[in-house]
């Protein structure tokens, strides 16, 4: 079909994927997906987590071999079985994660994966030349581990652009960038597309980004091509509907999909806020609570300081208070100390200096389990790493942080565990075949409900939710939002650690912005605009 269109135009598309299918066991990741990218076009590839975007691009890059389908470059069929072949056919990719090697220098990373002899000076000169052409300045001899997220992104771009790709794929490129850095990135993309006739595939789950930066958009849903159209002929709500497969309300879902970012947030955000805060009875007084009763904030962090093993400052005199019944968001770009704070509040690491007070009492941070005993529940950022044990049953996962409550002197009390598990599965609407099913068999959203159910069942004073909706589908996000509001309404102090502006705006009553390990400002949500937050995120006072 697309082939015919190309012939009538008299031009051949830069890249054509035809009928790409890939299944992993019973799971169909891609089902006969077609995709056509013209020269000089930015092609948005939109879809929820698990919709097949990543698999499709891995096929294109030779990292995964498809079960069926063809790849055509400039009208000719090509075989791509290795990343080198992909590079040879003019395909380049900027990966979301896992593609820079931190202890190596910039030039070593740029040279990695190419054949032939290594020529340090030539590579360094190239890095500088490409950097100068696109305005991506970077020191080629710097070690990557010393670079900021934005600078690393530059290295990735330079690495891809140096090989002069005809089609460049960007996978979620702005997830670690500040708003200013994202703008700069899209500037570079525009130049490289318009002036040099490249095709670009921009993968994103952020609607605002897709509508602003692309010419054509393709939506994938559950491995199938769900929608394809010129970006100018569609709208964000329509794309959201195509992506999710049903109508999307401008509430939690809208926020989750990035629908609410506009130049005038107040207007668009108001319904979200109304919806968000109506569930919290103590809405207006919440921010004042700490002031009214000084020193009794449910959670108070004082002067937390922590340096990494390499001497890098991860947390720098961090102060923050969260009152009972309040949702405070800690917002910032990934890699500015949020993960460290999450680990610290999980009791995984102790700070070099500073104190954590829960309900007015200091917690002995160097003692394992002290935070949990003091009433801090945590939804960890990476639930597979520190939240759950995938091969243990739902029931075991539901009780594992509080085993003392479910065991005698020597033996576990099976009946008590099962009763508690049944109750939590019921109360939190966890969809599982049985409480004995291994957690691995549950969907991501239901795994996250298990974590949430477990943490809330311990009746915490404070709930720390680190990226609680990361990797979840829209329905699960909506549910998570409702449950966090419910928890706050029942008197839990909620600290939401998030990198998603929309999530923060939809849930929190106050937003604390973190940059380079310190709080650069705390705003009431009514005073927060993307611009002000953006400046704080970049480390400037707003």
């Amino acid at each position, binding site marked *: 079909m697309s082939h015919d269109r190309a012939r009538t135009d008299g031009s051949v598309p830069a890249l054509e994927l035809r009928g790409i299918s890939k299944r992993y066991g019973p799971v169909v990741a891609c089902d006969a997906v077609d995709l056509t990218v013209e020269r000089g076009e930015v092609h948005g590839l939109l879809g929820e987590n698990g919709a097949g975007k990543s698999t499709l691009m891995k096929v294109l890059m030779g*990292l995964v071999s498809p079960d069926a389908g063809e790849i055509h470059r400039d009208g000719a069929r090509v075989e791509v079985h290795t990343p080198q072949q992909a*590079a040879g056919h003019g395909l380049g990719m900027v990966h979301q994660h896992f*593609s820079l090697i*931190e202890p*190596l220098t910039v030039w070593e990373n740029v040279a990695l*994966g190419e054949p032939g002899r*290594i020529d340090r000076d030539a590579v360094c000169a190239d890095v500088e030349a490409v950097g100068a052409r696109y305005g991506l300045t970077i020191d080629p001899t710097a070690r990557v581990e010393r670079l900021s997220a934005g600078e690393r992104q530059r290295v990735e771009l330079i690495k891809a652009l140096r090989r002069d790709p005809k089609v460049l794929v960007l996978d979620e490129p702005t997830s670690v960038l500040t708003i200013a850095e994202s703008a700069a990135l899209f500037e570079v993309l525009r130049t490289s597309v318009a002036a040099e006739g490249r095709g670009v595939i921009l993968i994103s789950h952020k609607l605002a980004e897709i509508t602003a930066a692309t010419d054509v958009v393709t939506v994938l849903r559950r491995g199938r091509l769900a929608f394809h159209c010129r970006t100018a002929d569609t709208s964000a709500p329509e794309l959201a509907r195509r992506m999710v497969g049903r109508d999307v309300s401008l509430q939690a879902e809208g926020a989750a999909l990035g629908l609410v970012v506009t130049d005038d947030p107040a207007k668009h955000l108001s319904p979200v806020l109304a919806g968000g805060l109506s569930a919290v009875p103590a809405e207006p007084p919440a921010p004042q609570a700490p002031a009214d009763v000084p020193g009794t904030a449910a959670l108070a962090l004082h002067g937390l300081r922590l340096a990494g093993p390499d001497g890098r400052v991860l947390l720098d005199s961090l102060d923050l208070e969260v009152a009972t019944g309040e949702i405070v968001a800690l917002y910032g770009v990934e890699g500015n100390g949020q993960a460290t704070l999450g680990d610290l509040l999980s009791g995984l690491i102790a700070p070099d200096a500073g104190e954590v007070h829960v309900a007015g009492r200091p917690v002995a941070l160097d003692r394992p389990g002290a935070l949990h005993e003091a009433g801090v529940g945590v939804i960890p950022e990476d639930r597979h790493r520190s939240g759950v044990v995938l091969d243990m049953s739902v029931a075991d996962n539901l009780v594992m942080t509080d085993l003392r409550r479910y065991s005698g002197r020597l033996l576990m009390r099976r009946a008590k565990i099962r009763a508690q598990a049944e109750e939590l599965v019921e109360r939190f609407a966890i969809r599982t075949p049985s409480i004995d099913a291994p957690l691995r068999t549950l969907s991501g959203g239901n795994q996250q409900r298990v974590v949430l159910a477990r943490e809330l069942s311990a009746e915490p004073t404070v709930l720390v939710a680190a990226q609680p909706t990361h990797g979840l589908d829209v329905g699960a996000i909506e549910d998570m939002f409702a449950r966090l509001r419910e928890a706050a309404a029942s008197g839990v102090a909620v600290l939401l650690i998030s990198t998603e502006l929309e999530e923060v705006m939809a849930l929190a009553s106050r937003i604390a912005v973190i940059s380079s390990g310190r709080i650069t400002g705390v705003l009431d949500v009514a005073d927060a605009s993307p611009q002000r937050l953006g400046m704080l995120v970049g480390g400037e006072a707003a």
Partner: protein
Amino acid sequence: MWLDDGGTVLSSALRLTAPLAFAACGEYLAERAGTLNISVEGMMLSGAFGAVAVGSATGSPTVGLVAGAVVGLLVALVHANLSHRIQINTFVVGLVINTLVLGLTSFLLQTMEFSRTQVGMLRIPGLADIPLVGVLFEQRWPFYLLLLVVPLTWFLVNRTRWGLELRAVGENPQAADVTGIKVNLRRRQALMWCGVMSGLGGAYLSVGLVGSFNNNMTAGRGFIVIAAVIFGAWRLKGTLLGCFLFGAADALRLALPSLGVELNPQLLVAAPYLLALTVMVLMARSQREPRALSKPFERGLV
């Protein structure tokens, strides 16, 4: 008087350092690629045996030396394919290889007869007459192979594309895979270099220093090499310094009684290992360890 004693101890220290240094070149490279190769002990022991067996059969210790390296390579091939092709835990593979080599060489030593076979000395005239450091220039000739092997190892790791890819694989195999490097192939290749070097180290011990093979003759020197790599914080210079430290401790152990110092002989035998243990405790938390060291890599797993 003390110059003579010093010269003797230094000479002995150098001779005992050399087998460690050969193996350390291999272990260093393997660890940079992400394999903490504990079968270096088995590789050394099999190399030592192979060198004597072939050396006494052919009558040429030089052929024996080469055979030692080849036997080390064969052991490495087994280890590499088991741990980096069919993904058996590398420590389990290493343990099995070490035990197997020890048992097999003991058995063969009992069932076979070997004649003495030893490579010749190489004395550099003039230089060898300098007091104290002169001992550097009066060694069994394979000692001077180190002058070739050490810079070559450094060059391979730090200057070639192969070495860059090895380091990438040792630090972040997922990223290396994405850029198109065959992670497990590089790790297998690194292990093979380790096998050749360790085999050579073992062969130097048998046909170089002693001239014959005796039961369990490496006696944990492979583990000392691993300690030396940790001591050197995964840098070649430090690793070699570590080897010299352990070699010197070993030499002192042998020299102390003849110098008139009375010490419990059992304690003396344990001394280098105690030193190795101390060094590991002190250096184990070094942050320069390759980040993917002893983490297996399988595609698609994150």
